């Protein structure tokens, strides 16, 4: 065997040099005469011995006297064990090595399968028959990924088609026609709504919109925690509803960002000069006036935001009506509103006492920018802006209360919230809380009472307002063996919310089961593209699309059933005329 270098040179860049040709002859063998000097393996055998000694020690030491809670992560378990055993003194902390045995024969509580099987792909998957369960879970995630891909492709559509407004008035004997089948209705529904009939009033509004009646806007308000914080899930649902029933505008937007995660899709928001804000979760307004969005914004002058229609994507391309939500108050200053390049309008906010106010700006249906500025003369207090069009269509408000425990909603002044909700006049209230409640202590009975109180507060202005309780997302944690498992509190919280929804006459959507149930967040985090976020509590934008699509399909299943039920009844019964 010979090796011959024909040309060789060192060059700075990868592709700077000349080709270096090497010729190698493999026809000869020089294998004979293996010899290695004495001591060749001494050090490496010594190292193997060291590793074996350290590992063996973990099996020799007795179990620690202080028990560790199951599911505790290794680092936390080891730290607390060492601290506890140190109090005993002597060599007791060494017993904590027991906790870091590399291999134990522990089994899963629910399946009885070994937690760790070496060489899994051969032994566990094939010989121990663990492959089937893993493949089923894998297939579920692949289905979810397929949904995410399909939704992402649909989002590339440039603009929603305009819904035709019906010109002719509703005839006396006109009947509701059967529902025209949408291709997407054929897609199987993974998780049907529980008690969809609780949403009949919403479905009636949707039917009016669907029939193209002039001005028929169906309005939904979706409150929740950070699960909806960046308008991901809500944006996905809005997009699908508006694509089918018409775009009646972006909906409500706060006057600023209560935190960095508050970002809406389908609207351009520019905070020129920041407002001071007070977010309901901090209980910072003793009067309880937080506005419908849960945050007040104040400035004595100079603060300014601009809200513009979107330039890309199908949502939020047009607006015809801005409604500014603000407060009148003693010593109130001026609020300056400027639409596009028009002359600004100045609102005096001075009032004898704190009161809710609104100012509407009507304009042509198109692309616009509204500037809202604190113009001095005293402090002004404002809440947000609702952007709508004349309809028919759907408006879907994202009302996230990021970081909120469910009970924080009770910080609202009840009468103030009642007026705010009445003004917004929704046809559907959706609640998706629970993510932060998982980190609190307290009984489920107490939690159910708080959740029920929140629903009652929202419905004070309209006790028959249809409501839908959306269970929280699966929340994962890493167990002692490193697997991502569902936090034990998740199923308890889901069940509590299900019971509250039933007691309050609300529909219920089991988001947790729709995701795939136990361990689903772990699978969603590791899918490609990832559907779950790295904190094991939130979703990626792909995950938002999947959950949005899952809820949309369930809502549409309920809608189809409703339309079947009312087919042939007079349209006027729906319109109230």
């Amino acid at each position: 065997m010979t090796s011959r270098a024909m040309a060789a040179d060192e060059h700075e860049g990868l592709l700077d040099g000349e080709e270096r040709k090497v010729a190698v002859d493999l026809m000869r063998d020089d294998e004979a005469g293996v010899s290695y000097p004495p001591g060749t393996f001494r050090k490496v055998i010594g190292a193997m011995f060291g590793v074996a000694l350290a590992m063996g020690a973990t099996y020799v030491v007795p179990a620690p006297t202080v028990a560790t809670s199951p599911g505790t992560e290794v680092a936390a378990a080891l730290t607390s064990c060492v601290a506890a055993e140190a109090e005993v003194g002597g060599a007791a902390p060494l017993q904590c090595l027991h906790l870091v045995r590399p291999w134990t024969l522990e089994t899963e509580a629910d399946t009885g399968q070994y937690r760790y099987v070496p060489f899994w792909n051969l032994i566990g998957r094939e010989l121990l028959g663990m492959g089937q369960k893993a493949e089923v879970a894998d297939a579920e995630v692949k289905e979810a990924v397929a949904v995410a891909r399909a939704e992402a492709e649909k989002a590339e559509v440039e603009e929603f088609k305009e819904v035709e407004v019906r010109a002719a008035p509703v005839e006396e004997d006109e009947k509701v026609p059967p529902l025209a089948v949408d291709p997407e209705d054929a897609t199987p529904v993974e998780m049907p709504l529980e008690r969809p009939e609780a949403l009949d009033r919403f479905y009636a509004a949707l039917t009016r919109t669907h029939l193209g009646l002039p001005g028929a806007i169906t309005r939904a308000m979706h409150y929740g925690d950070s699960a909806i914080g960046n308008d991901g899930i809500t944006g996905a649902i809005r997009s699908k509803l508006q694509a089918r029933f018409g775009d009646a505008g972006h909906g409500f937007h706060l006057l600023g960002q209560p935190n960095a995660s508050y970002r809406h899709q389908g609207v351009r928001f520019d905070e020129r000069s920041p407002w001071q804000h007070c977010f309901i979760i901090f209980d910072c307004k003793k009067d309880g006036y937080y506005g419908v969005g849960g945050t007040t914004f104040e400035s004595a002058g100079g603060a300014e935001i601009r809200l513009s229609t979107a330039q890309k994507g199908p949502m939020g391309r047009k607006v015809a009506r801005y409604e500014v939500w603000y407060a009148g108050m003693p010593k109130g200053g001026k609020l300056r509103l400027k639409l596009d390049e028009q002359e600004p309008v100045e609102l005096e906010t001075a009032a004898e006492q704190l009161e809710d106010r609104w100012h509407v700006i009507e304009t042509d249906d198109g692309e616009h920018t509204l500037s809202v500025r604190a113009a001095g003369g005293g402090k002004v207090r404002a809440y947000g802006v609702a952007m709508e069009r004349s309809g028919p269509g759907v408006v879907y408000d994202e009302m996230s209360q990021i970081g909120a425990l469910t009970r924080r909603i009770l910080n609202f002044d009840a009468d103030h919230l009642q007026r705010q909700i009445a003004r917004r006049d929704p046809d559907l209230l959706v609640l998706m809380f629970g993510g932060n409640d998982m980190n609190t202590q307290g009984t489920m009975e107490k939690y159910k009472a708080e959740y029920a109180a929140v629903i009652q507060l929202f419905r004070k202005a309209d006790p028959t307002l249809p409501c839908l309780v959306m269970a929280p997302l699966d929340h994962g944690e890493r167990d002692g063996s490193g697997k991502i498992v569902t936090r034990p509190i998740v199923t308890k919280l889901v069940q509590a919310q299900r019971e509250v929804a039933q007691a309050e006459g609300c529909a219920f959507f089991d988001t947790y089961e729709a995701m795939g149930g136990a361990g689903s967040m772990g699978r969603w985090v590791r899918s490609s593209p990832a559907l779950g976020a790295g904190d094991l509590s939130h979703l990626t934008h792909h995950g938002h699309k999947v959950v949005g699509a899952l809820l949309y399909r369930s809502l549409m299943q309920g809608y189809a059933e409703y339309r079947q039920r009312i087919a042939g009844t007079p349209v006027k019964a729906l319109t109230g005329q």
Partner: protein
Amino acid sequence: MLFVSFDFLLFIVPVLLISWGLSHVPVMRVLFLIAASYFFYMAGPETEPLQPPWYFVGLLLLSTVLDYVCSHQIWRQREAFEGKDRQAKAAASRTRNFWLGVSLVGNLGLLGYFKYTNFFLGIFSDVANALGMAVVVPHLELLLPIGISFYTFQTLSYTIDVWRGRLTPEPNFRKFALFVVFFPQLVAGPIVRAHEFLPQLHRPPQLSAEAMTRGMYRVVIGVAKKAILGDWIAAQFTDAIFNAPENYTSLEILLALYAFTLQLYADFSGYTDIAIGVALMLGFVLPENFERPYQARNLGEFWRRWHMTLSTWLRDYVFFPLGGSKGSPGRVYFNLWLTMFLVGMWHGASWNFILYSNIHALAMVFNRWNRLRKRGAGTAKTRAMWVTGLLILFAAVYGLSSTTLQLGQTESLGLGGFAVLMFLIVARLPETGTAWNTALHVLLTFHFTVLSRVFFRADDLDTSRKMIAGLLRFDAHGIRDGLITPAVWAALLFGLGYHLLTPKGLVDRQTYAAFRRLPGPVIGLLLALLALLIYMLLSSGPRANIYFQF
């Protein structure tokens, strides 16, 4: 199987002991290492998503047999091909080309089918839809066989070398089979050429106390790099940002890019260190794959230092056959662009990688032009060409930003301006000079790699858009409390400082000198402590190497 796992410990100790024991029986040693390598390939851990089942090993066997047969068929024509009979020569040439074609179609066909089918279907659909044809293409649920990009290139290079007459075919099938499946480098490189590996099977294994110590040293360094700077930083920080960039501030996104730049290097070079170390202990020498790439002064140098076995592979089998640096400037620039484009596209099949590949390929073209151009006072014509060139650059970046990336007008204008500014800075900066000049070159090259990593790491173009939009938002929200723990800060600063600032030769010599003074059992305890640290830090378990997916 993953290197940083208990499985691997259970595997490697008996493999080392038996391999050493068989070193006097070469046939048995080679057969044993083949069996161990196949076991290594098939016996992976439970992962999410699931890895391909064990029988995907059939593709590996197919590739082995295919290239063994093709290379021998090519070699059989040697005498006729080198003879003086024109007719026989022509026939031999056709036969040789046929068998080379079989190898190329077989290897690239497998790679193309598993890795690029969905991508090409997607492109077909995108183009058809852009032309107004409503085309719906299926998305195939294909499992990418682990390591296919590596072993395909490895076997392909062998057959091409035999065809080019630079290598005699390996007469012994078992030795060739071991070359293809040798487990330390099977699934994530380094990509070993036949002329580097096969000769080692024709001579006694290179076993010595020095090789053992150096092997253990590379393993310890590799494990620390892979697990702490690679996996841990990702689990603690980077993944969360890249999974949902819309939730994070501009500064947080920028920090995630720095962190990923470190993570990628630590992950891949750590894996390579372990591969080289394990091979050394088995008596083999594998080529190096990294040489402090983040200390490169320009992009050409960066690619000479980063994933060297891939970039030199494409240099030797694409760039040089195309003519390399010979020929007209236009031809050379085309050769350069194509080679670097393929380097990028080897990593993945998506619009993200098309952008990543082109950004690097065009930057390499610029790099060459900038180094070779005549400097000095320009004429009016030169100045006009500069202005025109800069306008074209601005328009191209602006167009790409506003269309493909769908950024707003202000952001697109900003990106166009930024590209022009960077172009002018690099073009005006002297090639050589003081230490400050070198530092500036290094810093600019490093930041080019950091920013282009957006397209490398993001799951898809939509995520890349969100990352770039987030960066260009320039919001004033800073970094939220608790997002980056002090320990992660320390690891980030240490890792970036170490790889950007320390001289490799000196540091390696000194740390190795200290390491070799340690007695064996102490090294063992050190490894056990490292394992404990990993066990505590990575409760989710070590991850697969990032390059597994390629």
